[in-house]
C-alpha cells in the first residue's frame, strides 16, 4: 500500500533538530534530522512523562527529552538504560529531499492522546492499590 503523505522538505527541519507534525487526531508526531541528514519520526511524547520530544536536543541517533533528560533512540524509540520505556515510532520516507509519513499511521497510530507509558502504569498501579485496599 502506497499511502505516503508529504510532510516537508528535509531542509525544513533544522540540522540536529526537529519539527512537529500536527494530526487530525492524537498527539503530534516529531520528525528529527540528524547531523548526516537522516530523518526519523517518533510520537511527540516521551515514554517517561509525556514530554514533547520534538523540543529536545538531538545528538547522534538520540534525542534528550526536554523534561527530564531521558535519552530516546531515534532509531527504535527505546530509552537509554537504565531508564526503561519506548516511544512510538513512525515510518519515514525521504525521496528527493522530501519527507513523507504513512497516512494510515498518521490516522491510526496513538490517536488517543494518552499520558506517557510510565504515568499510565503508575495510574494503573494506583487503581490496583485502591481496588485491593
Amino acid at each position, binding site marked *: 500500500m502506497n499511502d505516503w*503523505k*508529504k*510532510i*516537508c522538505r528535509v531542509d*525544513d527541519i*533544522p*540540522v*540536529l*533538530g526537529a*519539527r*512537529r*507534525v*500536527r*494530526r487530525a487526531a492524537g498527539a*503530534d508526531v516529531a*520528525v528529527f534530522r540528524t*547531523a548526516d541528514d537522516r530523518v526519523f519520526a517518533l510520537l511527540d511524547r516521551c515514554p517517561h*512523562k*509525556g*514530554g*514533547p520530544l520534538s*523540543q*529536545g*536536543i*538531538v*545528538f*547522534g541517533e*538520540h534525542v*534528550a527529552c*526536554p*523534561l527530564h*533528560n531521558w*535519552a530516546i533512540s531515534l532509531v527504535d524509540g527505546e530509552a537509554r538504560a*537504565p531508564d526503561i520505556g519506548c516511544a512510538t515510532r513512525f515510518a519515514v520516507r525521504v525521496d528527493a529531499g522530501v519527507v513523507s*509519513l504513512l*497516512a494510515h499511521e*498518521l490516522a491510526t497510530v496513538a490517536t488517543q492522546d494518552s499520558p506517557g507509558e510510565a504515568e499510565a502504569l503508575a495510574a494503573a498501579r494506583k487503581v490496583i492499590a485502591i481496588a485491593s485496599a
Partner: protein
Amino acid sequence: MKKMKLVMIGNGMAGVRTLEELLKIAPDLYEITVFGAEPHPNYNRILLSPVLAGEQTFPQIVLNPPAWYADNGITLHLGKAVTRIDRVKRVVHAADGTQAPYDRLLIATGSTPFMLPVPGNDLEGVIGYRDIADTEAMIDAATKYRHAVVIGGGLLGLEAANGLMLRGMKVTVVHIAPWLMERQLDDVAGGLLRKSLVDRGLDFLIGAQTEALLPDEATGRVRAVRFKDGTEVPADLVVMAAGIRPNTALAESAGLLAQRGLVVTDTLQTVTDARIYAVGECAAHRGVAYGLVAPLFEQAKVCATHLAEFGIGRYLGSQVSTKLKVTGIDLFSAGDFMGGEGCDAIVLSDPQSGVYKKLVIKDDKLVGACLYGDTVDGSWYFKLLREGRSVSDIRDRLMWGESSLGDAGHQGQNKAAAMADADEVCGCNGVSKGSICKAIKDKGLFTLDDVRKHTKASASCGSCTGLVEQIIMATAGGDYSAAPKKKAMCGCTDHSHGDVREAIRKLHILTIADVQRALSWRTPDGCSSCRPALNYYLISTWPKEARDDPQSRYINERSHANIQKDGTYSVIPRMWGGETTASELRRIADVVDKYQIPTVKVTGGQRIDLLGVKKEDLHDVWRDIGMPSGHAYAKALRTVKTCVGSEWCRFGTQDSTQMGKDLERALWRMYAPHKVKLAVSGCPRNCAESGIKDVGIIGVDSGWELYVGGNGGIKTEAGQFFCKVRTAEEVMGVSGAFLQLYREEGWYLERTVHWIARVGLDTIKQRVLDDLDNRKALWERLQFALDGEPDPWFESDKASVDKRQFIPLIPA
C-alpha cells in the same frame, strides 16, 4: 574471525567487575574462561562482616550468580586453583589438570591474610579472615565455643570481633599498636572507638605482643594465646587480622615481577608481560596495592578498555578514605589525619555525645580529616582534600560542614542509619531510603554515580549526597574513595570543564565541531549535556566571533520561553527593577484574555508569569505584550529585585529602585554559566533579600555594601561580604566586573556560590577589587559582549531564533 581467548585467574570483585566492563563495550571480542579457587561465584567480600554479624546472609551478598556467567558465555571453573602459568605456550594449568590456553591473561588473585609467624599458628581453630569459608568457620565456632581472640585491631579485626561478639562469644582483641585502627584514626578517635566497643562488650589488650598459640593437648585445637610478658588469655578460636599480603606466588613462579604486589603500568598490564593484566588487591600500581572497592573498580574500567583494544584511559592512582562497617559506629578518615610539623589542626571534641572531628590544614589546604560519631560531611572534606583548593576563606566555617547552612529537602537529616525506609532522602526526585537500598541490592550498585544513574537520588541538586553515600556504605559496603581528581565534562570526553575552557581560549576555537575535533571527542556531535556547555563557552569567550548555535541550546533558550510539564510554555516579560505601569498591566490583561492563558502568577523576582501558553502563540503573545524578554527561561541575568528605597520609604537611605533599574538595564541580555539574580535594598532591613542573591547590594547611609555568592535555592547560601563602595558608579563597576569574571571562568551550570567555593573568594577579590586595571578591563569586556545584543522576542533574526519551530507542519 576466531575469537581471542581471555583467561581470568581469580573470581573476585575486581576481576569480575573488569569482565562486566569489558562485556559492556566489547561483548564479542573474547572467549572467556574464569578460574576461581573458591567453590562460589563472585560475591561481595566487603559484606562478609555483616554476614558474620548476622545482618545479612550469604545468598544476599552474591553479586554474580552462576547464571550470569552462563548468560555471558563464560566458562567457569569453580573450586579449581590454578597452579601454573606457562607463559611460553600461553596456557594456565589448574590443580585438577584442567588447562586453558590464553591470548590475554587477567590475574585477579586478590590477597591472603598475614598469619603471624608464631608457634601454633597452624593449630586447628586458628584462621585468617578473608573469605566465606573463614566466615562460616567463625559462625560455626561461635555455636560451639566460648572464647575468641582476634589478633589485630584494624578495620578487619574489629569487624570480625564485633561479629563474633554478636554471635555470643567472649571476644578479646589483641592489638600491638598504642591505639585501635592506628592507620586510620588518631589517638583520640581511637580512644573513643575503643570506649564504645568496650561498652558493647569487647575486651582489649592494647600493646600486647603475641608470643605463641597454645594447643589443647587432648584435642589439638587452640586453647590459649600467650604474650611476651607471660600472661595468657583463653582462646577456642583465634582470628588473624594483622594485615593482608597480595597473592602473587603463582604469578611470581611464572616470572612476573612482584613488589608489594604484581607491578602494573597505568594500563594495568604487568611490566613483565604485556599480554598479562592484573587488577585488584594483587596488583601494585605505582607502589600501592589498593584494597578498597572504588579504586579497584576504577582499575577495572581502565583495564577493560585496554582489553577491548580501545586503548583509552589510564589509571593514575586513587586517594582513599576509610569507613568502619560496624553498625552504629560512624567513623571516617582520609589523608594525613595525624598532622604534625607545619600543620594546624582544627578540633571539635565532645566525648559526652561521642563526637570528635579533627581537620588538618597545611599551607591553607585541607590535608587530612578524622571524624568520629558524625561523618555526614566526610564526603565534602574528602572532596576539598582531593581538590587541594585553598580553604583560607572558609576556615572559620570548615568544621561545621557543607550543610551547616539551610539544607532543604530532607528534613535536616544527617544520619542515614536513623532514617526509616519510607523516609525521603532525595527531595528533588522523591527517592526514599528504602528504594535506594533496594536498587543497591538488586542491581549491585557500588558507587555514587551508579546510584544516581539508577535511582536519580542525589542526581539533581546533590544536597543529599552525604546521606546517599552513607546508605551506599551501609548497604553495599562501598566507600568514599577514588573519584579521579579531574571530573570529565560528560561521557563524550575525558576533558574537564576547565580543560575545555582553556583550550577554547588558547587555541581561539570558534565552533563546537572544532572543539570536539581539537579535543578528540568520542561522539560525533556530543550530547545534551556537553553541547549547551560548549556553546556557552564559545560565545562567552569569543563574543561577536563565535556564532550561537540554537540547536545546542536547551529548549527554553531555543524557544525563549520556559517549558512546562505539559509541553506548554510560560512567558515572563521584563519589568525593570520590579516596577510596572498601568498600560503594561492592561496589555498583559488583554493578552491573558485573548490567548486564554490559564494561570497568571506573581513571581519571586517581582514580575508577572503567564503560564500555559501554547508554543504557536508565543510570538503573538510577545508582540501583543510589547515588553522586553525577561529571560526567565535562560542561564542569564534574570531579575534585579528592589525594595522601595529612599524615594518613598521612611527608613530608606539610598534610592535602591533606581540603582536596581540601572543595573538591570546595564546587564540584561547577559548570558552566564547559570542564572544570575541581583537585588538592591535601600537600607540594612534588606527587604529585597539581597543576602541570597548572586550579587546583593545593601544601601547604607554612607554608601553601598556588596555581597556575592548568595543563593536562595536548593541550599540556602548567605552571600559573602565583598566590599563597600561610596557611589552608584562603583556599584555598577564592581558588580559588572565580578559577573564578567564569573562569565569568563565559571563552569557551565555552576552558580556563583559554587564558582566562588571552587576558586576562592580571596582570588576573586584580588582580581576585581585590588587590581583596578583588571576591574576596568573586565567591565569593558562585558560592555563589548553586551553591545548590540538583541532582544530575542523582537529581534528574532539577530538572536538566531529559528522561527520555524513555532509553526507546526500539516500533512499535505
